C-alpha cells in the first residue's frame, strides 16, 4: 500500500512559534523552564533596551549543562522532540553540578516546542551553548523570517551555525545563552488596556510577577534555582534583580489538603491552621486535623466522591487578613490559587480573570457578600507528571487539556474551596455579622426607649389641656341646664356634644400613642432570609386578600440580610393589607404584588397595588401622624415608618397614580451593615 508523509512547510514555525503562544511572558518563561531542565542553578533574563526598538535585545543566559553540536541538532532542530522524555537521548553531558541538578529535577517541559517560542519575541535568535569552559561555543542563528514560506518544507530552511564565536558579555563560562534580536514590541512600554488588580501595568513588571510565581514556593527542589532580571535602563531598574519567590507569611487561615485514592474511594486529609489572632478571636484550636471522603463540586452542589481520575492532588489555600493581602499585591504576589506541576507553574490558573475555583462565582452567588473575598485568597495546588499523567498541558501553554481528569481536578478543588469557605464563614465572618447585628439591636433598643419616653411625655402634656377642656365642657353643660331659652340651650348642648366627640377623638389618638409602650418592638437582629420574611407576611395577608377576591403575587428570591424579622414582616404585612384595601376600593380584581430588588448597597421590598392611588392632598403628609393612605385619621404608616426606623430600614412611596401605588421598604445589605458597624 502506498503511503504519504507529512512534510510541514517552513511556515509551520510561524504557527508553532509566533502565533501559538499568546502571552510573550510565556515565551520567556519557556526559556527559563529550559534552563531549569538543563540543571542550571541560575538564569539571567537581560533586557537591553537602549536605543531604538531594532537595537533592543533579550538575552537569557544560564549555567546549565549546555549542548554540543550533536545534542543541539537532536534537541533543537527537531520540533516536537524532547530529550527530556527520551531515554535514548544522545549527548550525555559530562558529570557536573548542573548534571546532578538536572537528574534531581522533574522536567518542566516535554513537548519540544518551547524553543520555537523565540519566534514570538523577535525576528532573530542567536543561541550560544557549550558544556564546559574548555569547549568552543556553538553559535546558531535563526532568522525566523526565512521560515515564513509555504513553498519549501521546514527542513529546507538553512540554519547557520559556527563554532568558536563567543557571546558578548557572557555571564557564565558554560551553559546556554539565548539572544533574541529585533524584538516585535517594546518592553519598556506599559501594558495596553485596563488595569488589572494585583497586576503591574508595565510589561517588565508583569514579567517579573510571572517569573516570581513560576516556582512553587512550597515545593522542595526549587531552592537551587534562581532567576535574575537584568535591565540596562536606569528608569526601569526597579524591575531588575533577583526574582524572589513571594509568599506571605501572615495568614489567618491555612487550609492544607491532600487528596489520595483509598480502597473506599478518594479521601482528603485536611489540616487547618489558624493564626494566633484567629485563635484568640474564635476560641478555635491553632490546628485541626481530619480525614474525610473527597467530594466533587460540580456547581451548586457537592457530588459523589467517584473515582480520583485526576490522580493525587495536594495543596494549600490561604486566607490572609486584608491588610496583609494588600501588602502581597505590593510585593508582587497577587491573590489567586496557582497550579504547579513538579514545582513549575501551569498558567493561567489563578491569574487575574481566571476563576478556575469558582471564587468570584461564589461571591456573586451571595449577592456580593463572600466569606472569603477573592482578593484575600491565595494558595497553590501541586500535581506531578508521574502522579497525574492524565493532566496534560496544552501546547499553547495556556492550561491543561480539558478532559475527564481535568474536570475531576477542578471539581475536587472547588469542593475544597467550598469547605474552606464554609469554615471561615462559620468561625470568622458570621460572628462579625453578629457584631453589627448586636450594635443595631442596641441602637434599636435605645431608639425604642427614647420613642417610648417621648410618647409618654407628649401624651402626658397633651392630656392636660384635653382634660381641662373636658372640665370646661362640664361648665358649659351646667350652664346649659340652667338656660331658660330652649333654642340657646340646644345650641349649647350641641356645642358640648360635638366638643366632647372631638376631644374623645383626640383622646383615642393619644391612646394609640401611648400604646407604643406596649408594642413588642424589635428584639433580635439576626442573619435572615428576606424572602422568608416576605413569605410569612404574604401568608398572614392572604386571608384578607381572599376575602377581597384580590390575589397576591409574590416573586421573591432568597437573599440574606441582617435585620429584625418581626419588624420587617409587620411592615410588609401592613403594606399588603393597605394594597388589598386600595385595590378593593378601586373595585379592581387585579393582584397586589410584592418583590425584592437589589439596588446598590440596599435591598428593596416593593409592594405594588392597582388601587386608586393616593390623593394629592395627603401625599406629602403620608407618613405623618393621623394621616392614612385613604386620607382618614390613622397611625398605620406612621407606625410602619417608626418600626422600620428602629431596624435601620426606611419606607417610601415610590409612585402613585390612578393605576395604583408602589411602596418600597429599603433594607441595608449585610455589606452596608458591616460598613456602618
Amino acid at each position, binding site marked *: 500500500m502506498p503511503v504519504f508523509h507529512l512534510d510541514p512547510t517552513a511556515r509551520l514555525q510561524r504557527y508553532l512559534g509566533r502565533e501559538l503562544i499568546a502571552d510573550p511572558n510565556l515565551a520567556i518563561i519557556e526559556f527559563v523552564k529550559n534552563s531549569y531542565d538543563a540543571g542550571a542553578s541560575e538564569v539571567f533574563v537581560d533586557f537591553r533596551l537602549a536605543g531604538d526598538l531594532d537595537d533592543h535585545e533579550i538575552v537569557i543566559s544560564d549555567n546549565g549543562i549546555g549542548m554540543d553540536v550533536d545534542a543541539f541538532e537532536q534537541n533543537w532542530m527537531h520540533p516536537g522532540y524532547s530529550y527530556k522524555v527520551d531515554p535514548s537521548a544522545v549527548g550525555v553531558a559530562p558529570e557536573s553540578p548542573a548534571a546532578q541538578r538536572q537528574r534531581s529535577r522533574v522536567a518542566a517541559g516535554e513537548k519540544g516546542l518551547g524553543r520555537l517560542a523565540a519566534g514570538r519575541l523577535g525576528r532573530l535568535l542567536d543561541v550560544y551553548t557549550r558544556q564546559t569552559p574548555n569547549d568552543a561555543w556553538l553559535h546558531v542563528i535563526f532568522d525566523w523570517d526565512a521560515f515564513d514560506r509555504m513553498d519549501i518544507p521546514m527542513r529546507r530552511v538553512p540554519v547557520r551555525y559556527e563554532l568558536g564565536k563567543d557571546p558578548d558579555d557572557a555571564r557564565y563560562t558554560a551553559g546556554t545563552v539565548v539572544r533574541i534580536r529585533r524584538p516585535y514590541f517594546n518592553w519598556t512600554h506599559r501594558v495596553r488596556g485596563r488595569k488589572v488588580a494585583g497586576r503591574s501595568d508595565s510589561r517588565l513588571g508583569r514579567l517579573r510577577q510571572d517569573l516570581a510565581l513560576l516556582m512553587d514556593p512550597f515545593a522542595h527542589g526549587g531552592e537551587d534555582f534562581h532567576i535574575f532580571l537584568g535591565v540596562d535602563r536606569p528608569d526601569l531598574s526597579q524591575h531588575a534583580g533577583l526574582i524572589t519567590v513571594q509568599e506571605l507569611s501572615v495568614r489567618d487561615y491555612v487550609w492544607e489538603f491532600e487528596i489520595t485514592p483509598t480502597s473506599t474511594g478518594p479521601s482528603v486529609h485536611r489540616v487547618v491552621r489558624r493564626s494566633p489572632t484567629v485563635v484568640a478571636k474564635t476560641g478555635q484550636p491553632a490546628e485541626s486535623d481530619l480525614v474525610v471522603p473527597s467530594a466533587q463540586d460540580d456547581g451548586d452542589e457537592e457530588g459523589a466522591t467517584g473515582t480520583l481520575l485526576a490522580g493525587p492532588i495536594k495543596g494549600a489555600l490561604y486566607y490572609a487578613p486584608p491588610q496583609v493581602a494588600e501588602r502581597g499585591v505590593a510585593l508582587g504576589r497577587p491573590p489567586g490559587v496557582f497550579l504547579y506541576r513538579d514545582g513549575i507553574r501551569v498558567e493561567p490558573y489563578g491569574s487575574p480573570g481566571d476563576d478556575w475555583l469558582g471564587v468570584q462565582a461564589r461571591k456573586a452567588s451571595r449577592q456580593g457578600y463572600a466569606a472569603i473575598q477573592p482578593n484575600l485568597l491565595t494558595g497553590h495546588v501541586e500535581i506531578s507528571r508521574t502522579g497525574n499523567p492524565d493532566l496534560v498541558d496544552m501546547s499553547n501553554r495556556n492550561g491543561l487539556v480539558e478532559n475527564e481528569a481535568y474536570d475531576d481536578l477542578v471539581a475536587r478543588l472547588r469542593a475544597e474551596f467550598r469547605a474552606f469557605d464554609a469554615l471561615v464563614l462559620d468561625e470568622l465572618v458570621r460572628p462579625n455579622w453578629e457584631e453589627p447585628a448586636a450594635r443595631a439591636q442596641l441602637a434599636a433598643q435605645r431608639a425604642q*426607649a*427614647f420613642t417610648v*419616653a*417621648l410618647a*409618654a*411625655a407628649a*401624651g*402626658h*402634656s*397633651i*392630656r*392636660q*389641656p*384635653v*382634660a*381641662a*377642656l*373636658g*372640665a*370646661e*365642657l*362640664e*361648665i358649659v353643660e*351646667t*350652664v346649659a341646664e340652667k338656660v331658660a331659652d330652649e333654642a340657646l340651650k340646644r345650641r349649647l348642648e350641641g356645642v358640648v356634644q360635638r366638643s*366632647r366627640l372631638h*376631644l*374623645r377623638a*383626640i*383622646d383615642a389618638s*393619644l*391612646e394609640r400613642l*401611648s*400604646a407604643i*409602650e*406596649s408594642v413588642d418592638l424589635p428584639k433580635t437582629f439576626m442573619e435572615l432570609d428576606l424572602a422568608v420574611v416576605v413569605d410569612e407576611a404574604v401568608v398572614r395577608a392572604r386571608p384578607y386578600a381572599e376575602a377581597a377576591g384580590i390575589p397576591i403575587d409574590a416573586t421573591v428570591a432568597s437573599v440574606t440580610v441582617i435585620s429584625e424579622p418581626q419588624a420587617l414582616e409587620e411592615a410588609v404585612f401592613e403594606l399588603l393589607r393597605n394594597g388589598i384595601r386600595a385595590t378593593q376600593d378601586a373595585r379592581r380584581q387585579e393582584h397586589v404584588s410584592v418583590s425584592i430588588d437589589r439596588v446598590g448597597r440596599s435591598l428593596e421590598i416593593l409592594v405594588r397595588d392597582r388601587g386608586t392611588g393616593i390623593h394629592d392632598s395627603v401625599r406629602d403628609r403620608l407618613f405623618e401622624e393621623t394621616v392614612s393612605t385613604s386620607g382618614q385619621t390613622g397611625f398605620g404608616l406612621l407606625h410602619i415608618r417608626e418600626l422600620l426606623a428602629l431596624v435601620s430600614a426606611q419606607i417610601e412611596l415610590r409612585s402613585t397614580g390612578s393605576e395604583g401605588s408602589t411602596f418600597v421598604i429599603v433594607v441595608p445589605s449585610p455589606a452596608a451593615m458591616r460598613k456602618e458597624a
Partner: protein
Amino acid sequence: MDAAALLIDDDAGFAESVAASFDARDLPLDVANSWETGLALYRAGLHELVVADYNLPGSKHGLKLLLEVKALRPSTRLVLISGRVTPTAADLIAAAGLVDRFIPKTPDLARELIDEARAAESRAVQGTDWRQVAGAHLARNTIDEGALESVDAALRVQVES
C-alpha cells in the same frame, strides 16, 4: 362650706378648669399646686376626697407623706390622676393597693371627679369610725415601699437623654 375635696395639681390651667367646673355644680374644691401646699391644706381640712396628679415634682415623697396622713383618717378617699396612660398603669396601681382609685386625664375626668366629690360630701356628714382610725394608726408606719415603687414606675414621666 368647707370643701370636701382637695385637688393637688401643678398645672394651674387644668386646676382652674376643674375648679370652675366644680363651682358650676356648686361643689367647693380646695386646690393646691404642690405637694407641700396640698399636705398643709389636707392637715387643716381633713378632706374626704384628695385628688392628686402624680406627676408633680417630688411625687414619690409627696405621695408617701399623703399616704401616712391618710392612714390617720382612713375614710379619706385618695384618687390619683395622671396624663400618663398605659394599659398597664391602671392595673399596676390597682395591684399596689395604696390608693383608692386611678383616673387617667381624659375629657371625662372632670365629670368623674364631680361624681367623686358628691360621694365625698355625702360621706362627710357621717360620723367618724374611731375603730377604723385606731387600726389605721397602728398600720401607719407600714406603707409598702414596693407598692409605692410600682406606682412610681407606672406613672413617672421623663424623657431619657
